[in-house]
């Protein structure tokens, strides 16, 4: 056994607080180590060449690199030693940066710790066995969860790349939040005009199968072979017969159903088609408001429907789809306005959210584009916009910036001037955040050309006085308190994670942060991948972002899937469990504990009952290995001997 040890300076990241020369010197003394050196940037081109040269020159057969986290560069170095002809599992990486140099203050203790980390890695690598990956067929179909702009972009790019796409959308129509917008910044072009054609493309693309008004019930399997159980919620309308004529909507007696599409800006009917350009343009019944369900009798829509599509008896329907990769584009939610008690959120009708105001601006919205005060339906003349309503607020648990409120508030201020020429808009802001291309010029236009008055300061309280709403804020540039008697107040409420985001993450086995946004594999270098191979992210489900970024991530996720599927076979991870059929006593405790049912009973020719591992299904968790009473089943690369070698390296020194 001739082990080569390479200690990395990582510039000053490691060398700054660890005496790398001493670590290399100590490494040379360790049993089995034939060569040890320290190098400035081991992961660089010359650094890797240093390793391959040393392998040839000193006939090394095991390599240890002491540098950053293996989660960062383990694959890089495995490829390096493969090039030099070694099996890529003859490699171990000791983490002496994130776990040592960056967190320890005392150089001597850090160096001592680095030496012991190297000793553990050397002890383990000497126990490593060569492993060879087999390959398995990929099911080249993609599941896209969420039909917003990010999901649609991902689905279209995958389908145009020749892949079959299954799209699952929770609400009755695709389009997501963007379908609810009137105009988009910074070009002020009409949102549905640029989104509608894309929605039609999704509907008409023969490679895209759309499941609207459906939810993900369960996900099984792993990259290349997922089984997705989809729950198709009952719209109580037979969509094969429904033509979307809307007659039922007109005749429905219930006029006060909650309108999810308009975020409650105005009531709607118990049976409705969310918006004129809805895809699929089909009616859906809301059982909480429909009298047929609530009171047990009505049936008006069934009577008037020309194609007899209404069916009150519909039940949940479960179907299964087989796919090889998943793109999650589940979007975002908005903070409940009731949490802003000092602004009277939910108590005063003339204090509304930005998205409700957007619906008022929209020609196909509840007020056909007329801006009104919800209290008395009059046209407001003084409109106050409040930025950061809930965002950047630790006391509400939302310390982050919601990314695009400054921009849509500027847009709404501009549109307000168009709709009501003699109106005066005010915007309370802390910092106008408009970093995108043409963004800052856009917010300047709202002030220079459209006369919106920007006031630098937060709003402390909003209360009614007569018919007006008094907005009590501060102008820190004037250095005092200010009050505005407004007709209408629009709150730029905070962006939060989509409702049910955590449950979805648990089904996908991906992690989410304290706010419910999904955690990407690497914030800078792998923004659309997750730690779970085969599951990709796109859009605001990963964090608040505007339309251009969401569309960009949609295409990026599609590109990742297309590259994943560019190969016909996927290399399986060889670090899976293996049964030593001599020592296996056939108790099959491992079979019961395996989370993936990857172990089956096998009868040998001698009639002896033993356990057998299905290579393609085993995910390599190792629960079986720590269950087996006689150590017959061993998770390769993390066998008992290998792990105990590390324990002994620390304890028996």
């Amino acid at each position, binding site marked *: 056994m001739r082990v080569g040890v390479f200690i990395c300076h990582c510039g000053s990241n490691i060398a700054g607080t660890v005496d790398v020369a001493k670590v290399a010197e100590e490494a040379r003394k360790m049993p089995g180590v034939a060569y040890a050196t320290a190098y400035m940037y081991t992961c660089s081109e010359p650094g890797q060449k240093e390793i391959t040269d040393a392998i040839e020159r000193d006939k090394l057969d095991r390599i240890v690199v002491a540098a950053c986290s293996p989660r960062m560069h383990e694959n890089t170095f495995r490829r390096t030693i493969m090039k030099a002809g070694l099996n890529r599992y003859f490699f171990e990486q000791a983490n002496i940066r994130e776990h040592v140099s960056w967190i320890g203050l005392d150089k001597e203790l850090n160096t001592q710790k680095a030496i012991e980390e190297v000793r553990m890695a050397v002890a383990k690598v000497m126990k490593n066995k060569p492993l060879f990956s087999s390959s398995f067929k990929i099911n080249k179909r993609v599941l896209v969860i969420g039909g917003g702009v990010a999901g649609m972009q991902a689905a279209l790019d995958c389908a145009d790349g020749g892949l079959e796409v299954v799209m699952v959308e929770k609400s009755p129509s695709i389009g997501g939040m963007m379908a609810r917008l009137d105009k988009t910044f910074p070009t002020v072009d009409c949102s549905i005009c640029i989104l509608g054609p894309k929605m039609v493309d999704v509907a008409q693309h023969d490679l895209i199968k759309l499941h609207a008004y459906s939810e993900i019930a369960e996900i099984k399997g792993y990259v290349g072979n997922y089984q997705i159980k989809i729950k198709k919620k009952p719209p109580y309308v037979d969509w094969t017969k429904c033509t979307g004529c809307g007659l039922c909507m007109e005749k429905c007696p219930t006029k006060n159903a909650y309108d999810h599409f308009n975020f409650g800006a105005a009531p709607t009917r118990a049976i409705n088609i969310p918006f004129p350009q809805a895809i699929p343009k089909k009616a859906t019944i809301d059982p909480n408001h429909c009298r047929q369900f609530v009171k047990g009798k009505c049936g008006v829509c069934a009577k008037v429907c020309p194609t007899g599509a209404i069916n009150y008896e519909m039940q949940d329907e479960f179907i299964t789809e087989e796919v090889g990769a998943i793109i999650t584009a589940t979007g975002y939610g908005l903070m409940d306005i009731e949490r802003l*008690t*000092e602004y*009277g959120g939910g*108590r005063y009708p003339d204090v509304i959210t930005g998205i409700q105001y957007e619906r008022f601006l929209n020609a196909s919205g509840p007020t056909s584009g007329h801006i009104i005060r919800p209290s008395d339906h009059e046209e407001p003349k003084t409109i106050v916009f409040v930025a950061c309503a809930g965002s950047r607020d630790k006391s509400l648990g939302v310390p982050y910036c919601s990314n695009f409120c400054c921009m849509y508030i500027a847009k709404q201020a501009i549109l307000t001037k168009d709709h009501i020429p003699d109106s005066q808009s005010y915007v309370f802001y802390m910092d106008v955040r408009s970093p995108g291309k043409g963004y800052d010029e856009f917010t300047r236009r709202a002030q220079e050309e459209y006369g919106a008055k920007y006031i630098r300061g937060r709003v402390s309280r909003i*209360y*009614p*006085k007569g018919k007006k709403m008094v907005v009590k804020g501060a102008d820190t540039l004037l250095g005092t308190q200010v009050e505005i008697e407004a007709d209408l107040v629009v709150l730029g409420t905070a962006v939060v994670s989509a409702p049910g985001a955590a449950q979805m993450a648990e089904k996908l086995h991906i992690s989410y942060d304290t706010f419910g946004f999904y955690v990407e594999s690497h914030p800078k270098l792998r923004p659309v991948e997750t730690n779970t191979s085969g599951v990709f992210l796109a859009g605001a489900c990963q964090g608040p972002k505007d339309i251009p970024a969401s569309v960009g991530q949609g295409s990026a996720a599609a590109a990742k899937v297309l590259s994943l599927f560019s190969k016909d076979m996927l290399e399986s991870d060889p670090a899976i469990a293996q049964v030593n059929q001599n020592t296996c006593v056939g108790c099959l405790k491992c079979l019961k504990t395996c989370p993936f049912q990857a172990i089956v009973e096998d009868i040998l020719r001698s009639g002896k009952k033993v356990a057998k591992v299905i290579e393609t299904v085993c995910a390599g968790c190792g629960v079986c290995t720590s269950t087996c009473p006689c150590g017959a089943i061993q998770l390769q690369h993390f066998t008992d001997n290998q792990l105990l070698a590390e324990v002994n390296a620390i304890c028996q020194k």
Partner: protein
Amino acid sequence: MAEKEYAYFSGCSLEGTAKEYDESLRAIMKALGVNLVEPDDWSCCGSTPAHTVDHVFAAALAARNLTLVEKMNKDVLTTPCPSCLMAFKKAQFNMSRDEAFKDEVNGLLDEAYNCGVESKSSLQVIYEDIGLDAIAARVTHIMPDLKVAPYYGCILSRPPEIAQFDDPENPVSMDKVLSAAGIQVQDFAFKMECCGAAFGVPKREMVNRLSGKVLEMAIDAGANCIAVACPLCQQNLDLRQEQVNKTTGSNYNIPVIYFTQLIGLAYGLSPKELGMDKVIVSADSITRRITREEYEKIKADEAAAKKPQKAKKDAAAEETNN
């Protein structure tokens, strides 16, 4: 009604300028079957002046009384005055979280306080412990002309992590308690705006202006009476109401009464017993009382009177249909 008993800290102002608050509170507590036991030889809580000198000193003045309550082996102390309440809560909050602070405070005291007493405002006791049903059960009289704007003042439910009572931005406890007592309540926006607090003597004019705004908003909202739960608010809004008129050129004449007095009236207790005579701007004109039965009778007559019209209107509607 299980016999409830609380350690009761009235506070200095309830022995002087806010005597009627003490009298009315005792009266309704007796009616509600709650026993109030005063800690023997209690001393002033230090209120605002103390915490402008030093926080340890202020906590010591408050903690001295909490020790007395601990010796009565009671674990809950109720006090009607928000200023005393805040002194006790801050002392308890800081002493239970910070050992060093606790030792420093106990260093100033004869007997150490070991944080065993929770202090609650009398409003909180009435609202949470006694409960709305119990309050409603004892109502015998209704005041039909009365329209009360409940005024909470600024520190009854603030800051939230110390007060831990009701909503710091939109409190509703007094509204609910008064409506449970059959009193018509009118919400208004300035129910938590500061009235001027302890600046009455040194900065009278400033207090008059601040109190003026509160009075104006209550009247704008259509109320003909303001209910308060704090002796200092009552003083600034009622005792100084004439000064407010002089300073701001207004002519407000709206009675400012303790919510306990109003509940007492609804229980049919005598105005004398409730200290109604001690209020500066008289409330007699609007606290005309009729018994509950009379009230129900009037309501029944009104409904009966309206029925024929309704019948007439339905009949008319019938004709147009067919």
